[in-house]
Protein backbone atom coordinates (compact mmCIF):
# COMPACT_ATOMS: atom_id res chain seq x y z
CA UNK A 1 0.00 0.00 0.00
CA UNK A 2 2.89 2.29 0.74
CA UNK A 3 4.23 1.77 -2.73
CA UNK A 4 1.38 3.87 -4.10
CA UNK A 5 3.11 7.05 -2.98
CA UNK A 6 4.83 8.55 -5.98
CA UNK A 7 8.10 10.14 -5.14
CA UNK A 8 10.08 12.42 -7.36
CA UNK A 9 7.42 12.60 -10.02
CA UNK A 10 9.85 12.68 -12.91
CA UNK A 11 8.18 12.00 -16.26
CA UNK A 12 10.72 10.57 -18.73
CA UNK A 13 10.89 12.27 -22.11
CA UNK A 14 13.15 13.71 -24.79
CA UNK A 15 11.72 17.20 -25.13
CA UNK A 16 13.72 20.44 -25.27
CA UNK A 17 12.68 21.16 -21.70
CA UNK A 18 13.99 17.77 -20.55
CA UNK A 19 17.29 18.41 -22.29
CA UNK A 20 17.95 21.76 -20.62
CA UNK A 21 20.71 21.94 -18.07
CA UNK A 22 19.25 21.47 -14.57
CA UNK A 23 20.91 24.69 -13.47
CA UNK A 24 19.08 26.61 -16.19
CA UNK A 25 15.79 25.11 -15.07
CA UNK A 26 16.39 25.88 -11.40
CA UNK A 27 17.38 29.49 -12.12
CA UNK A 28 14.51 30.05 -14.51
CA UNK A 29 12.04 28.54 -12.04
CA UNK A 30 13.28 30.96 -9.41
CA UNK A 31 12.99 33.81 -11.90
CA UNK A 32 9.46 32.68 -12.76
CA UNK A 33 8.50 32.63 -9.08
CA UNK A 34 9.83 36.14 -8.59
CA UNK A 35 7.91 37.29 -11.64
CA UNK A 36 4.69 35.78 -10.30
CA UNK A 37 5.22 37.49 -6.97
CA UNK A 38 5.97 40.85 -8.55
CA UNK A 39 2.85 40.83 -10.69
CA UNK A 40 0.29 42.85 -8.81
CA UNK A 41 -2.52 43.01 -11.30
CA UNK A 42 -4.88 40.12 -11.95
CA UNK A 43 -5.02 40.79 -15.72
CA UNK A 44 -1.26 40.39 -16.06
CA UNK A 45 -1.66 36.76 -15.04
CA UNK A 46 -3.15 36.13 -18.48
CA UNK A 47 0.16 36.49 -20.36
CA UNK A 48 1.97 34.65 -17.55
CA UNK A 49 -0.46 31.74 -17.76
CA UNK A 50 -0.20 31.68 -21.55
CA UNK A 51 3.58 31.64 -21.31
CA UNK A 52 3.48 28.78 -18.83
CA UNK A 53 1.04 26.93 -21.05
CA UNK A 54 3.46 27.33 -23.94
CA UNK A 55 6.23 25.69 -21.90
CA UNK A 56 3.85 22.88 -20.90
CA UNK A 57 3.27 22.11 -24.56
CA UNK A 58 7.03 22.08 -25.15
CA UNK A 59 7.55 19.41 -22.46
CA UNK A 60 5.41 16.95 -24.46
CA UNK A 61 3.95 15.70 -21.18
CA UNK A 62 0.15 15.15 -21.25
CA UNK A 63 -1.44 18.35 -19.89
CA UNK A 64 -3.76 16.25 -17.75
CA UNK A 65 -0.79 14.74 -15.96
CA UNK A 66 0.77 18.14 -15.30
CA UNK A 67 -2.51 19.45 -13.91
CA UNK A 68 -2.79 16.42 -11.64
CA UNK A 69 0.15 17.81 -9.68
CA UNK A 70 -2.34 20.39 -8.37
CA UNK A 71 -4.48 17.74 -6.71
CA UNK A 72 -2.59 17.56 -3.39
CA UNK A 73 -2.91 21.36 -3.26
CA UNK A 74 -6.67 21.52 -3.56
CA UNK A 75 -7.48 22.01 0.13
CA UNK A 76 -4.82 24.65 0.56
CA UNK A 77 -6.27 26.43 -2.45
CA UNK A 78 -9.79 26.28 -1.07
CA UNK A 79 -8.54 27.45 2.31
CA UNK A 80 -6.65 30.41 0.83
CA UNK A 81 -9.61 31.34 -1.29
CA UNK A 82 -12.10 31.26 1.58
CA UNK A 83 -9.82 33.10 4.01
CA UNK A 84 -9.26 35.93 1.56
CA UNK A 85 -12.91 36.00 0.67
CA UNK A 86 -13.95 36.43 4.28
CA UNK A 87 -11.15 38.57 5.65
CA UNK A 88 -11.15 41.44 3.17
CA UNK A 89 -13.89 43.83 3.97
CA UNK A 90 -13.19 46.83 1.74
CA UNK A 91 -14.98 47.58 -1.52
CA UNK A 92 -18.57 47.28 -2.57
CA UNK A 93 -20.61 44.89 -0.43
CA UNK A 94 -22.24 42.17 -2.52
CA UNK A 95 -23.63 39.89 0.15
CA UNK A 96 -24.08 40.22 3.88
CA UNK A 97 -25.62 37.92 6.45
CA UNK A 98 -24.74 37.02 10.05
CA UNK A 99 -21.02 37.81 10.41
CA UNK A 100 -20.23 37.13 6.78
CA UNK A 101 -19.65 40.03 4.44
CA UNK A 102 -18.49 39.48 0.89
CA UNK A 103 -17.16 42.42 -1.09
CA UNK A 104 -15.90 42.98 -4.64
CA UNK A 105 -12.37 43.55 -3.36
CA UNK A 106 -12.51 40.27 -1.51
CA UNK A 107 -13.49 38.35 -4.64
CA UNK A 108 -10.75 39.94 -6.72
CA UNK A 109 -8.19 39.31 -3.99
CA UNK A 110 -9.30 35.68 -3.44
CA UNK A 111 -9.07 34.90 -7.14
CA UNK A 112 -5.73 36.68 -7.37
CA UNK A 113 -4.17 34.74 -4.50
CA UNK A 114 -5.48 31.42 -5.79
CA UNK A 115 -4.23 31.99 -9.31
CA UNK A 116 -0.83 33.01 -7.99
CA UNK A 117 -0.58 29.83 -5.97
CA UNK A 118 -1.71 27.74 -8.94
CA UNK A 119 0.94 29.28 -11.14
CA UNK A 120 3.66 28.74 -8.57
CA UNK A 121 2.81 25.08 -8.15
CA UNK A 122 2.54 24.48 -11.89
CA UNK A 123 5.81 26.27 -12.57
CA UNK A 124 7.80 24.22 -10.07
CA UNK A 125 6.06 21.00 -11.17
CA UNK A 126 7.31 21.63 -14.69
CA UNK A 127 10.83 21.59 -13.33
CA UNK A 128 10.45 18.41 -11.26
CA UNK A 129 8.51 16.63 -14.00
CA UNK A 130 11.24 17.18 -16.57
CA UNK A 131 14.34 16.71 -14.40
CA UNK A 132 15.39 13.58 -12.51
CA UNK A 133 15.86 14.19 -8.80
CA UNK A 134 19.50 13.30 -9.12
CA UNK A 135 20.06 15.88 -11.87
CA UNK A 136 18.31 18.46 -9.73
CA UNK A 137 20.59 17.62 -6.83
CA UNK A 138 23.66 17.88 -9.05
CA UNK A 139 22.40 21.20 -10.37
CA UNK A 140 21.83 22.55 -6.89
CA UNK A 141 25.27 21.44 -5.78
CA UNK A 142 26.87 23.22 -8.73
CA UNK A 143 24.82 26.37 -8.18
CA UNK A 144 25.62 26.50 -4.51
CA UNK A 145 29.30 25.68 -4.91
CA UNK A 146 30.43 29.34 -4.91
CA UNK A 147 29.05 29.48 -1.36
CA UNK A 148 31.75 27.03 -0.27
CA UNK A 149 33.95 30.07 0.21
CA UNK A 150 31.85 30.97 3.24
CA UNK A 151 31.99 27.31 4.41
CA UNK A 152 28.53 26.51 3.13
CA UNK A 153 28.39 22.66 2.87
CA UNK A 154 27.08 22.53 -0.71
CA UNK A 155 28.58 19.14 -1.52
CA UNK A 156 27.54 17.54 1.75
CA UNK A 157 23.95 18.73 1.34
CA UNK A 158 23.79 17.39 -2.19
CA UNK A 159 25.25 14.05 -1.08
CA UNK A 160 22.68 13.82 1.69
CA UNK A 161 19.88 14.44 -0.77
CA UNK A 162 21.26 11.81 -3.13
CA UNK A 163 21.43 9.21 -0.37
CA UNK A 164 17.95 10.11 0.84
CA UNK A 165 16.57 9.67 -2.66
CA UNK A 166 18.37 6.36 -3.00
CA UNK A 167 17.04 4.99 0.29
CA UNK A 168 13.43 6.16 0.20
CA UNK A 169 12.22 3.17 -1.85
CA UNK A 170 14.31 0.79 0.26
CA UNK A 171 12.88 2.09 3.51
CA UNK A 172 9.33 2.11 2.15
CA UNK A 173 9.78 -1.54 1.23
CA UNK A 174 11.08 -2.22 4.66
CA UNK A 175 8.15 -0.45 6.33
CA UNK A 176 5.80 -2.55 4.29
CA UNK A 177 7.61 -5.72 5.36
CA UNK A 178 7.66 -4.84 9.06
CA UNK A 179 3.99 -3.85 8.94
CA UNK A 180 3.13 -7.21 7.45
CA UNK A 181 5.20 -9.05 10.03
CA UNK A 182 3.52 -7.24 12.94
CA UNK A 183 0.07 -7.62 11.42
CA UNK A 184 0.75 -11.35 11.29
CA UNK A 185 1.39 -11.16 15.03
CA UNK A 186 -2.03 -9.65 15.52
CA UNK A 187 -1.10 -5.96 15.56
CA UNK A 188 -3.96 -3.72 14.54
CA UNK A 189 -3.23 -0.39 12.87
CA UNK A 190 -6.68 0.43 11.62
CA UNK A 191 -9.08 0.51 14.52
CA UNK A 192 -9.24 2.20 17.91
CA UNK A 193 -8.74 5.70 19.22
CA UNK A 194 -6.07 8.06 17.99
CA UNK A 195 -3.86 7.29 20.98
CA UNK A 196 -4.28 3.57 20.50
CA UNK A 197 -3.37 3.89 16.86
CA UNK A 198 -0.33 6.01 17.65
CA UNK A 199 0.75 3.35 20.14
CA UNK A 200 0.26 0.68 17.50
CA UNK A 201 2.95 2.40 15.42
CA UNK A 202 5.66 1.64 17.99
CA UNK A 203 6.21 -1.96 16.79
CA UNK A 204 6.82 -0.52 13.33
CA UNK A 205 8.85 2.55 14.18
CA UNK A 206 11.39 0.87 16.46
CA UNK A 207 12.46 -1.87 14.05
CA UNK A 208 12.46 0.69 11.25
CA UNK A 209 14.75 3.06 13.14
CA UNK A 210 17.08 0.29 14.16
CA UNK A 211 17.36 -0.95 10.63
CA UNK A 212 17.80 2.58 9.26
CA UNK A 213 20.69 3.19 11.64
CA UNK A 214 22.23 -0.14 10.71
CA UNK A 215 21.91 0.74 7.04
CA UNK A 216 23.47 4.15 7.62
CA UNK A 217 26.35 2.52 9.43
CA UNK A 218 26.97 -0.04 6.71
CA UNK A 219 26.63 2.54 3.97
CA UNK A 220 29.23 4.74 5.68
CA UNK A 221 31.66 1.81 5.75
CA UNK A 222 30.93 1.02 2.11
CA UNK A 223 31.46 4.65 1.07
CA UNK A 224 34.68 4.76 3.05
CA UNK A 225 35.85 1.61 1.26
CA UNK A 226 35.14 3.34 -2.03
CA UNK A 227 37.54 6.11 -1.16
CA UNK A 228 34.91 8.72 -0.36
CA UNK A 229 36.53 11.59 1.47
CA UNK A 230 34.20 14.52 0.93
CA UNK A 231 33.90 16.83 -2.04
CA UNK A 232 37.53 17.88 -2.28
CA UNK A 233 39.35 16.57 -5.33
CA UNK A 234 36.24 14.79 -6.50
CA UNK A 235 35.52 14.63 -10.23
CA UNK A 236 32.26 13.73 -11.93
CA UNK A 237 31.54 11.31 -14.73
CA UNK A 238 28.69 13.41 -16.08
CA UNK A 239 29.83 16.98 -16.45
CA UNK A 240 27.11 19.59 -16.89
CA UNK A 241 27.40 21.85 -19.91
CA UNK A 242 25.40 24.92 -20.73
CA UNK A 243 24.36 24.49 -24.34
CA UNK A 244 23.01 26.95 -26.88
CA UNK A 245 19.47 25.90 -26.02
CA UNK A 246 20.06 26.97 -22.40
CA UNK A 247 21.01 30.46 -23.57
CA UNK A 248 18.03 30.68 -25.88
CA UNK A 249 15.61 29.39 -23.24
CA UNK A 250 16.97 31.81 -20.68
CA UNK A 251 16.83 34.75 -23.08
CA UNK A 252 13.27 34.03 -24.22
CA UNK A 253 11.90 33.51 -20.73
CA UNK A 254 13.70 36.46 -19.18
CA UNK A 255 12.50 38.79 -21.92
CA UNK A 256 8.94 37.46 -21.77
CA UNK A 257 8.45 37.47 -18.01
CA UNK A 258 10.65 40.55 -17.64
CA UNK A 259 8.30 42.39 -19.98
CA UNK A 260 5.34 41.29 -17.86
CA UNK A 261 7.02 42.54 -14.69
CA UNK A 262 7.98 45.87 -16.24
CA UNK A 263 4.44 46.32 -17.54
CA UNK A 264 3.16 45.62 -14.06
CA UNK A 265 5.44 48.21 -12.50
CA UNK A 266 4.67 50.84 -15.12
CA UNK A 267 0.90 50.40 -14.89
Amino acid at each position, binding site marked *: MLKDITLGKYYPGNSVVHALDPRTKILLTIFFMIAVFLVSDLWLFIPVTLGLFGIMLLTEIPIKLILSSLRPMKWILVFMFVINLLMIRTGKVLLEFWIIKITTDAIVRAVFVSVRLLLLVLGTSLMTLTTTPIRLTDGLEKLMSPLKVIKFPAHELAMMMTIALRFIPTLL*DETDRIMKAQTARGADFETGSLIKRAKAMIPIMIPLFISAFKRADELAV*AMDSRCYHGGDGRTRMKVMHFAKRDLIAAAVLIIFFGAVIVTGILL
Partner: protein
Amino acid sequence: MAIISVQDLTFNYTESGFPALSNVSLEIEKGEFLAIVGHNGSGKSTLAKHFNGLLTPTSGKVYVCGMDTADENNSLDIKRHVGMVFQNPDNQIVTTVVEDDVAFGPENLGVPSDEIRKRVDEALVSVGMKKYAQAAPHMLSGGQKQRIAIAGMLAMHPDILVLDEATAMLDPMGRREITDIARKLNKENGITVIMITQHMDEVTYADRVVVMKNGKIEFEGDPKRVFSQSARLTGAGLDVPPAVALRNKLICEHALAPTNAVDTEEITDDIYREFVKRGIV
Protein backbone atom coordinates in the same frame (compact mmCIF):
# COMPACT_ATOMS: atom_id res chain seq x y z
CA MET B 1 56.42 -10.92 -2.16
CA ALA B 2 52.98 -11.44 -0.68
CA ILE B 3 50.35 -8.90 -1.77
CA ILE B 4 48.83 -8.94 1.71
CA SER B 5 50.89 -9.81 4.72
CA VAL B 6 49.26 -10.17 8.14
CA GLN B 7 51.78 -10.42 10.95
CA ASP B 8 50.77 -11.51 14.42
CA LEU B 9 47.56 -9.49 14.28
CA THR B 10 45.48 -9.03 17.42
CA PHE B 11 42.37 -6.89 17.44
CA ASN B 12 40.04 -5.79 20.24
CA TYR B 13 36.80 -3.95 19.54
CA THR B 14 36.71 -2.70 23.11
CA GLU B 15 39.64 -2.19 25.41
CA SER B 16 38.58 -4.72 27.99
CA GLY B 17 36.72 -7.21 25.81
CA PHE B 18 37.69 -10.56 24.43
CA PRO B 19 39.88 -10.06 21.36
CA ALA B 20 38.02 -10.56 18.06
CA LEU B 21 41.31 -11.69 16.51
CA SER B 22 44.32 -13.02 18.33
CA ASN B 23 47.78 -13.61 16.90
CA VAL B 24 46.67 -14.13 13.31
CA SER B 25 49.42 -14.44 10.71
CA LEU B 26 48.64 -14.91 7.05
CA GLU B 27 50.37 -14.32 3.73
CA ILE B 28 48.25 -13.87 0.62
CA GLU B 29 49.99 -14.16 -2.74
CA LYS B 30 49.25 -12.09 -5.82
CA GLY B 31 46.74 -13.82 -8.09
CA GLU B 32 45.58 -16.21 -5.42
CA PHE B 33 41.95 -17.24 -4.91
CA LEU B 34 41.65 -17.49 -1.15
CA ALA B 35 38.58 -18.54 0.80
CA ILE B 36 38.16 -17.70 4.48
CA VAL B 37 35.48 -19.69 6.29
CA GLY B 38 34.31 -19.76 9.86
CA HIS B 39 31.26 -19.70 12.11
CA ASN B 40 29.47 -16.47 13.07
CA GLY B 41 31.77 -14.48 15.29
CA SER B 42 34.88 -16.43 14.29
CA GLY B 43 36.55 -13.17 13.32
CA LYS B 44 36.53 -13.68 9.57
CA SER B 45 34.79 -10.39 8.80
CA THR B 46 36.95 -8.54 11.29
CA LEU B 47 39.99 -9.93 9.50
CA ALA B 48 38.55 -8.85 6.13
CA LYS B 49 38.12 -5.28 7.38
CA HIS B 50 41.87 -5.20 8.10
CA PHE B 51 42.66 -5.88 4.44
CA ASN B 52 41.68 -2.37 3.36
CA GLY B 53 42.42 -0.50 6.56
CA LEU B 54 38.79 -0.11 7.69
CA LEU B 55 40.16 -1.53 10.93
CA THR B 56 43.76 -1.28 12.08
CA PRO B 57 45.51 -3.77 14.38
CA THR B 58 45.49 -3.37 18.15
CA SER B 59 48.86 -5.06 17.94
CA GLY B 60 50.73 -6.64 15.05
CA LYS B 61 51.02 -5.41 11.46
CA VAL B 62 49.10 -5.65 8.22
CA TYR B 63 50.84 -4.77 4.95
CA VAL B 64 48.88 -4.36 1.73
CA CYS B 65 50.97 -4.06 -1.45
CA GLY B 66 53.86 -3.23 0.84
CA MET B 67 51.99 -0.42 2.62
CA ASP B 68 51.42 -0.41 6.37
CA THR B 69 47.64 -0.09 6.99
CA ALA B 70 48.26 1.61 10.34
CA ASP B 71 49.82 4.60 8.56
CA GLU B 72 47.06 7.19 7.95
CA ASN B 73 48.83 8.50 4.85
CA ASN B 74 48.38 5.16 3.09
CA SER B 75 44.66 4.96 3.82
CA LEU B 76 43.31 6.15 0.47
CA ASP B 77 45.93 4.35 -1.57
CA ILE B 78 45.21 1.04 0.15
CA LYS B 79 41.46 1.39 -0.36
CA ARG B 80 42.08 2.01 -4.04
CA HIS B 81 44.03 -1.24 -4.28
CA VAL B 82 41.51 -3.33 -2.35
CA GLY B 83 37.91 -3.50 -3.55
CA MET B 84 35.46 -4.57 -0.83
CA VAL B 85 31.99 -5.97 -1.38
CA PHE B 86 29.82 -6.41 1.71
CA GLN B 87 26.95 -8.62 2.78
CA ASN B 88 23.84 -6.50 2.35
CA PRO B 89 23.34 -5.57 -1.31
CA ASP B 90 21.06 -2.68 -0.36
CA ASN B 91 23.49 -0.91 1.90
CA GLN B 92 26.40 -0.29 -0.41
CA ILE B 93 24.81 1.38 -3.40
CA VAL B 94 24.96 5.14 -3.01
CA THR B 95 23.09 6.68 -5.91
CA THR B 96 19.82 6.19 -7.75
CA VAL B 97 21.17 5.21 -11.17
CA VAL B 98 23.33 2.11 -11.73
CA GLU B 99 26.02 3.75 -13.86
CA ASP B 100 26.31 6.74 -11.51
CA ASP B 101 26.90 4.35 -8.68
CA VAL B 102 29.65 2.50 -10.51
CA ALA B 103 31.24 5.90 -11.16
CA PHE B 104 31.22 6.78 -7.45
CA GLY B 105 34.63 5.25 -6.65
CA PRO B 106 36.62 6.71 -9.53
CA GLU B 107 34.90 10.07 -8.93
CA ASN B 108 36.23 10.04 -5.39
CA LEU B 109 39.68 9.29 -6.74
CA GLY B 110 39.55 12.34 -8.99
CA VAL B 111 39.79 10.39 -12.24
CA PRO B 112 39.07 12.58 -15.33
CA SER B 113 35.49 12.39 -16.67
CA ASP B 114 36.19 10.62 -19.98
CA GLU B 115 38.33 8.05 -18.22
CA ILE B 116 35.55 7.40 -15.67
CA ARG B 117 33.06 6.86 -18.49
CA LYS B 118 35.40 4.30 -20.03
CA ARG B 119 36.02 2.50 -16.74
CA VAL B 120 32.32 2.40 -15.87
CA ASP B 121 31.41 0.89 -19.23
CA GLU B 122 34.17 -1.70 -18.95
CA ALA B 123 33.23 -2.60 -15.39
CA LEU B 124 29.56 -3.02 -16.28
CA VAL B 125 30.47 -5.26 -19.22
CA SER B 126 32.71 -7.47 -17.13
CA VAL B 127 29.93 -8.16 -14.61
CA GLY B 128 27.38 -8.55 -17.40
CA MET B 129 25.23 -5.59 -16.35
CA LYS B 130 25.72 -3.24 -19.31
CA LYS B 131 22.07 -3.28 -20.23
CA TYR B 132 21.07 -2.12 -16.76
CA ALA B 133 23.31 0.98 -16.86
CA GLN B 134 20.32 3.33 -16.58
CA ALA B 135 18.26 1.21 -14.18
CA ALA B 136 17.33 2.16 -10.64
CA PRO B 137 19.20 -0.07 -8.16
CA HIS B 138 16.15 -0.88 -6.03
CA MET B 139 14.51 -2.53 -9.03
CA LEU B 140 17.30 -5.12 -9.37
CA SER B 141 17.58 -8.56 -7.78
CA GLY B 142 20.01 -9.20 -4.94
CA GLY B 143 22.53 -10.90 -7.22
CA GLN B 144 22.34 -8.05 -9.70
CA LYS B 145 22.89 -5.48 -6.95
CA GLN B 146 25.99 -7.34 -5.80
CA ARG B 147 27.24 -7.40 -9.39
CA ILE B 148 26.83 -3.61 -9.44
CA ALA B 149 28.77 -3.41 -6.19
CA ILE B 150 31.57 -5.47 -7.76
CA ALA B 151 31.52 -3.24 -10.85
CA GLY B 152 31.83 -0.21 -8.56
CA MET B 153 35.01 -1.73 -7.19
CA LEU B 154 36.39 -2.77 -10.59
CA ALA B 155 36.04 0.81 -11.81
CA MET B 156 38.69 1.76 -9.25
CA HIS B 157 41.06 -0.76 -10.94
CA PRO B 158 41.89 -2.69 -7.76
CA ASP B 159 44.48 -5.48 -7.48
CA ILE B 160 42.54 -7.28 -4.80
CA LEU B 161 38.83 -8.01 -4.50
CA VAL B 162 37.48 -8.91 -1.05
CA LEU B 163 33.99 -10.42 -0.94
CA ASP B 164 32.98 -10.11 2.69
CA GLU B 165 30.09 -12.58 2.93
CA ALA B 166 28.83 -11.04 -0.27
CA THR B 167 26.75 -14.13 -1.07
CA ALA B 168 25.16 -14.63 2.36
CA MET B 169 21.89 -12.91 1.53
CA LEU B 170 21.51 -14.21 -2.02
CA ASP B 171 19.49 -17.06 -3.48
CA PRO B 172 21.34 -19.94 -5.20
CA MET B 173 21.17 -18.24 -8.58
CA GLY B 174 22.56 -14.98 -7.21
CA ARG B 175 25.29 -16.86 -5.42
CA ARG B 176 26.31 -18.62 -8.58
CA GLU B 177 26.41 -15.30 -10.47
CA ILE B 178 28.76 -13.81 -7.91
CA THR B 179 31.09 -16.80 -7.56
CA ASP B 180 31.29 -17.15 -11.35
CA ILE B 181 32.30 -13.50 -11.69
CA ALA B 182 34.84 -13.82 -8.89
CA ARG B 183 36.42 -16.84 -10.59
CA LYS B 184 36.46 -15.10 -13.96
CA LEU B 185 38.11 -11.97 -12.56
CA ASN B 186 40.71 -14.14 -10.85
CA LYS B 187 41.51 -16.27 -13.88
CA GLU B 188 41.23 -13.73 -16.69
CA ASN B 189 42.18 -10.44 -15.07
CA GLY B 190 44.62 -11.82 -12.52
CA ILE B 191 42.82 -10.09 -9.65
CA THR B 192 43.59 -11.54 -6.24
CA VAL B 193 40.25 -12.70 -4.79
CA ILE B 194 39.57 -13.17 -1.10
CA MET B 195 36.21 -14.73 -0.50
CA ILE B 196 34.75 -14.75 2.99
CA THR B 197 31.83 -17.12 3.22
CA GLN B 198 29.80 -19.60 5.24
CA HIS B 199 28.75 -21.66 2.26
CA MET B 200 31.17 -24.55 2.06
CA ASP B 201 30.21 -25.43 -1.51
CA GLU B 202 31.58 -22.05 -2.64
CA VAL B 203 35.10 -22.81 -1.49
CA THR B 204 35.62 -26.00 -3.50
CA TYR B 205 37.34 -24.09 -6.30
CA ALA B 206 39.53 -21.84 -4.15
CA ASP B 207 43.31 -22.26 -4.33
CA ARG B 208 43.49 -22.24 -0.56
CA VAL B 209 41.00 -22.31 2.32
CA VAL B 210 41.59 -20.70 5.69
CA VAL B 211 39.35 -21.98 8.48
CA MET B 212 38.81 -19.60 11.38
CA LYS B 213 37.54 -20.38 14.85
CA ASN B 214 37.18 -18.04 17.83
CA GLY B 215 39.46 -15.35 16.44
CA LYS B 216 42.25 -17.68 15.40
CA ILE B 217 43.23 -19.55 12.28
CA GLU B 218 42.23 -23.13 13.05
CA PHE B 219 43.83 -24.70 10.00
CA GLU B 220 44.37 -24.09 6.31
CA GLY B 221 45.12 -25.88 3.10
CA ASP B 222 43.73 -26.56 -0.35
CA PRO B 223 40.02 -27.53 -0.46
CA LYS B 224 40.80 -31.23 -0.82
CA ARG B 225 42.91 -31.23 2.31
CA VAL B 226 40.47 -29.11 4.28
CA PHE B 227 37.44 -31.22 3.40
CA SER B 228 39.25 -34.41 4.30
CA GLN B 229 39.14 -33.27 7.92
CA SER B 230 35.41 -33.16 8.43
CA ALA B 231 35.64 -33.69 12.19
CA ARG B 232 37.82 -30.62 12.53
CA LEU B 233 35.41 -28.64 10.35
CA THR B 234 32.43 -29.68 12.46
CA GLY B 235 34.44 -28.69 15.51
CA ALA B 236 34.82 -25.22 14.01
CA GLY B 237 31.03 -24.96 13.62
CA LEU B 238 31.12 -25.68 9.90
CA ASP B 239 30.14 -28.62 7.77
CA VAL B 240 31.22 -30.30 4.57
CA PRO B 241 29.20 -30.09 1.34
CA PRO B 242 26.64 -32.94 1.05
CA ALA B 243 28.60 -34.73 -1.69
CA VAL B 244 31.70 -34.81 0.49
CA ALA B 245 29.60 -36.06 3.40
CA LEU B 246 28.41 -38.93 1.20
CA ARG B 247 31.96 -39.66 0.11
CA ASN B 248 33.18 -39.77 3.70
CA LYS B 249 30.33 -42.06 4.76
CA LEU B 250 31.03 -44.50 1.94
CA ILE B 251 34.75 -44.53 2.66
CA CYS B 252 34.02 -45.07 6.32
CA GLU B 253 31.81 -48.06 5.45
CA HIS B 254 34.56 -49.42 3.18
CA ALA B 255 32.18 -49.09 0.27
CA LEU B 256 34.50 -46.69 -1.53
CA ALA B 257 38.26 -46.55 -1.95
CA PRO B 258 39.74 -43.51 -0.20
CA THR B 259 39.60 -40.44 -2.45
CA ASN B 260 40.05 -36.75 -1.85
CA ALA B 261 37.63 -35.55 -4.52
CA VAL B 262 35.46 -32.61 -3.41
CA ASP B 263 33.54 -31.78 -6.56
CA THR B 264 30.15 -33.49 -6.96
CA GLU B 265 30.96 -34.68 -10.48
CA GLU B 266 34.32 -36.09 -9.42
CA ILE B 267 32.74 -37.92 -6.52
CA THR B 268 30.10 -39.40 -8.83
CA ASP B 269 32.95 -40.59 -11.04
CA ASP B 270 34.72 -42.16 -8.09
CA ILE B 271 31.59 -44.01 -7.03
CA TYR B 272 31.05 -45.21 -10.58
CA ARG B 273 34.62 -46.47 -10.73
CA GLU B 274 33.95 -48.39 -7.55
CA PHE B 275 30.99 -50.08 -9.24
CA VAL B 276 33.20 -51.01 -12.18
CA LYS B 277 35.99 -52.20 -9.93
CA ARG B 278 33.69 -54.42 -7.97
CA GLY B 279 32.31 -55.79 -11.21
CA ILE B 280 28.72 -54.69 -10.69
CA VAL B 281 28.46 -52.73 -13.91
